[in-house]
């Protein structure tokens, strides 16, 4: 399984990321998820902090676990850090497989665990106010349903 993990300030190119996953020609199915900064009220900036090295290591562990659960040919995770604006893309999780159902399941699994395990923190700027986004319990529930 080809695994690509990148933490970066720049945006990413979906065409290039999906092409890299399928260039071996083995994979007929790619399921992807992109997370975007919503435009809401006075939200002006979303700043992403992370724990360098641990972030990559944790995502690699999650990708490995994902590859143990489903027959995959490739996994790509690109997560942005730094200052983002409403409308910007935050994260890409893309999973390639020969089987569509495996690709979907694996992509959702990896996204759920990235939300609960990868050390990123979001700070919102609204007008002059800055505040750290609170972790959502619904994200814990989403991850826990895979443990059944």
């Amino acid at each position, binding site marked *: 399984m080809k695994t690509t993990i990148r933490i970066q300030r720049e945006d990413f190119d979906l065409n290039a990321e999906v092409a890299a996953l399928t260039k071996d020609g083995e994979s007929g199915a790619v399921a992807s998820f992109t997370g975007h900064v919503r435009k809401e009220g006075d939200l002006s900036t979303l700043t992403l902090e*992370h*724990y360098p*090295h*641990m972030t990559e*290591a944790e995502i690699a562990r999650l990708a490995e676990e994902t590859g143990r659960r489903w027959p995959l040919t490739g996994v790509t995770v690109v997560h942005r850090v730094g200052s983002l604006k409403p409308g910007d893309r935050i994260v890409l999780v893309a999973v390639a497989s020969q089987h569509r159902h495996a690709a979907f399941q694996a992509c959702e699994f990896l996204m759920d665990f990235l*939300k609960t395990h990868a*050390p990123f*923190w979001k700070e919102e700027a609204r007008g002059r106010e800055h505040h*750290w986004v609170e972790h959502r319990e619904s994200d814990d529930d989403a991850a826990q349903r895979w443990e059944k």
Partner: protein
Amino acid sequence: MTLLYFAWVRQKIGKGEEKLAAPAGDVAALIAHLKSLGPNYMDAFADLSRIRVAVNQRHAGLDARLGPDDEVAFFPPVTGG
């Protein structure tokens, strides 16, 4: 021991990283020690239900044993993705 702080834990403590010769023990003992160092630590660790821990870049619990060369990080529940 290397200590790292992220997000509001970092802001409350007032720095992102420090070296410390902490007494032997587990994470809970380290936190108790840190809280004795000043009101900024008291504030950061006031509610442990809001604190998560990593030891050597892996998620860990309050009962994880620590050695002198360990890297220990404290941060809020994660909010990436």
